[in-house]
């Protein structure tokens, strides 16, 4: 998928001015974060489970080569074909090759951010294989030719009315005057259309939430059941998973599952958790005859052992998006690529380079909410600061910013000069800042500065 991250500033401004998006983002605050609190309040061991999960990931990353090899070995024993892809090019060629061998005309897909990362849909379509997204949210944005705006709720930026318009335009074989005013009717229409696609598909592609080394198993979690229909009905199932998805044992997977859905949608567990080990067996009555796993690096191995290694613990739950004041103000499309919010602002520079993505680490108030809610306690604010520092050190910042920072540093080291200037600035803001005034975007200060208040004994 091509990134528009360079245009972050314009993208963000557009997001802020989009009323429909703002309404959708308002709903987000009332949904996932509230449910998350409810579910973790019913699990006294939640904090301990987070610590366990971190220890599992740390141990696995320290021995990543070994666990990948054991995973591959055990998957092969069960009849899996395991492929290795250095980057998107490798992965796309491997997947197209499998589709061609299967004589595939259509491919159904479960929701997979890694598949978005490598832009598999466009590539397959260009090569004569029709990809069909089957997760309801992904299906909607595929029809609209949009990228996901949220890693677990890809169509969260849309209203029901917008979805209805999309369906009327795309499903033009149906009665144009049908009533699509309720989410239920939209769901039923998509269900009926996609049911036929599931049954007709030649290949099913899913991602993986985990790979289990002990048994050579891939795991997906879904609520809709689309991932299962995708991988059960066609003759060929392709799993695409990045290298950091491997965990040692079934028990380790259980620990991570306990924190995954709770942090993501606020469910105790998703409706479907599916463990796949190899293709259809002799006594099986259904299931895919071919089972392929594509293990993708795409820049992740270069994060190991470095200052961004913590990011490889990410389990893509989206808790950091759901709690980020910046994400909730501008929406996911502003970030311009697959991954958005704080995790996206750390991951995108690692995978695409800072030249393309340098705006993202700056799009944070560093309030720390993301780190608080991250089930893997990834120090996202620290990682964002590290990217900022790198950008500054490589001379990336423009002259205006550099001069501004130099001026601030000069003043900050001279309190006798800094304080009176601050007082003047505050007075000016009191006159011009706040809603309805000259600079409505700047807040109107209330009370004195911290130092003033401290002097007056307020502490």
């Amino acid at each position, binding site marked *: 998928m091509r990134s528009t991250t360079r245009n972050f500033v314009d993208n963000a401004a557009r997001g802020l001015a989009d009323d429909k998006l703002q309404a959708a983002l308002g*709903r987000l605050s009332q*949904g996932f974060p509230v449910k998350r609190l409810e579910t973790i309040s019913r699990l006294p*061991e939640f904090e*301990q*489970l987070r610590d366990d999960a971190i220890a599992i990931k740390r141990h696995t990353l320290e*021995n*990543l*080569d*070994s*666990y990948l090899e*054991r995973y591959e070995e055990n998957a092969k024993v*069960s009849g899996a074909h395991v*492929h*290795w*892809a*250095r980057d998107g090019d490798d992965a796309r060629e*491997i997947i197209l090759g499998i589709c061609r061998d299967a004589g595939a005309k259509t491919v159904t897909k479960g929701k997979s951010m890694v598949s978005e990362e490598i832009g598999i849909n466009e590539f397959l379509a260009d090569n004569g294989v029709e990809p069909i997204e*089957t*997760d*309801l*949210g992904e299906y909607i944005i595929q029809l609209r030719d949009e990228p996901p705006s949220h890693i677990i*709720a890809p169509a*969260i930026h*849309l*209203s*029901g009315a917008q979805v209805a318009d999309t369906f009327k335009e795309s499903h033009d074989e149906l009665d144009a005057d049908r009533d699509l005013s309720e*989410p*239920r009717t939209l*769901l039923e229409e998509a*269900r009926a259309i996609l049911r036929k696609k599931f*049954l007709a598909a030649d290949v099913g592609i899913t991602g993986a939430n985990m790979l289990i080394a*002990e*048994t*050579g198993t891939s795991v997906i979690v879904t*609520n*809709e*059941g*689309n991932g*299962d*229909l995708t991988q*059960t009905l066609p003759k060929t199932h392709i799993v695409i998973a990045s290298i950091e998805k491997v965990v*040692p*044992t*079934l*028990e*380790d997977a*259980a*620990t991570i599952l306990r924190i995954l859905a709770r942090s993501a949608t606020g469910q*105790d567990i998703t*409706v*479907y958790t599916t*463990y796949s*080990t190899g293709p*259809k067996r002799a*006594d099986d*009555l*259904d299931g895919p005859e071919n089972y392929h796993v594509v293990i993708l690096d795409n820049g992740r*191995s*270069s994060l190991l*052992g470095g200052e961004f290694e913590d990011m490889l613990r990410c389990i893509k739950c989206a808790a950091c998006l759901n709690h980020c004041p910046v994400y909730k103000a501008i929406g996911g499309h502003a970030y311009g690529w697959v991954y958005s919010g704080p995790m996206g602002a750390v991951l995108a520079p690692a995978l695409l380079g800072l030249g393309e993505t340098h705006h993202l680490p700056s799009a944070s108030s560093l309030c720390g909410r993301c780190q608080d809610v991250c089930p893997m306690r990834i120090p996202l604010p620290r990682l964002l600061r590290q990217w900022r520092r790198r950008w500054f050190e490589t001379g990336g910042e423009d002259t205006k910013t550099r001069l501004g920072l130099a001026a601030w540093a000069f003043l900050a080291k001279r309190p006798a000069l800094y304080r009176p200037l601050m007082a003047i600035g505050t007075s000016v803001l009191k006159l011009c800042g706040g809603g309805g005034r000259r600079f409505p975007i700047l807040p109107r200060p209330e009370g004195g500065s911290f130092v003033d208040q401290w002097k007056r004994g307020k502490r």
Partner: protein
Amino acid sequence: MKAARSEILANVRSALNKKDIEIPSAVDERLRAHAINTVPARVSGADADRIAIFIEEAERASATIERIKAPKELAGAVTAYLKSIDEEQAVRAAGHPLLKECLAEQTILEVTEGPSDGTDTVALTAAFAGIAETGTLVLCAGSESPTTLNFLPDTNIVLLPEVSIVGTYEDAWAALRQTMGSGVMPRTVNWITGPSRSADIEQTLLMGAHGPRRLHIILLADS
């Protein structure tokens, strides 16, 4: 793609400062031991009422539940349930020995056996286990349990012997290892917690996204 494999593994090893390509014994030891991490005390204690917790949690996930005392009561329970949701008295059943035993003498239901091709409206299956922790059913693919039955029919009726209800996820893995042997998995293990759902449109939660609209669990008491 041999080159890709060795290149990726070499990159990983060099990032980890690893000179040795041998797999450390600690890794294999961990895989062999598959040690249990933290588990919820609520379901792991000796005095935990696993059946009651299973029922509570499965209902929280929007499954419906009833209990029967003997195998021969299954047909009557299924019949009454199908009547209550206005469905015809026909099921596509898994060829599971327990289901065969339960349905041996019944004459009310039309029962056909095998996987689903998408034309069946009601599935009747038997679960390998139930997990009290989250009211989760465990179904293992095989000749006695075709996977398509879990996803294609609109209504999913699952028979679960109460004796197969365990406390935690780890207990379910232990039970599976006892049946299949360590390190061996069925082709597919499905954990199912409630009926299919989606909240992708305006975050409105709706049942019956792509999979079953209803999940009805029939618990069979120990005999």
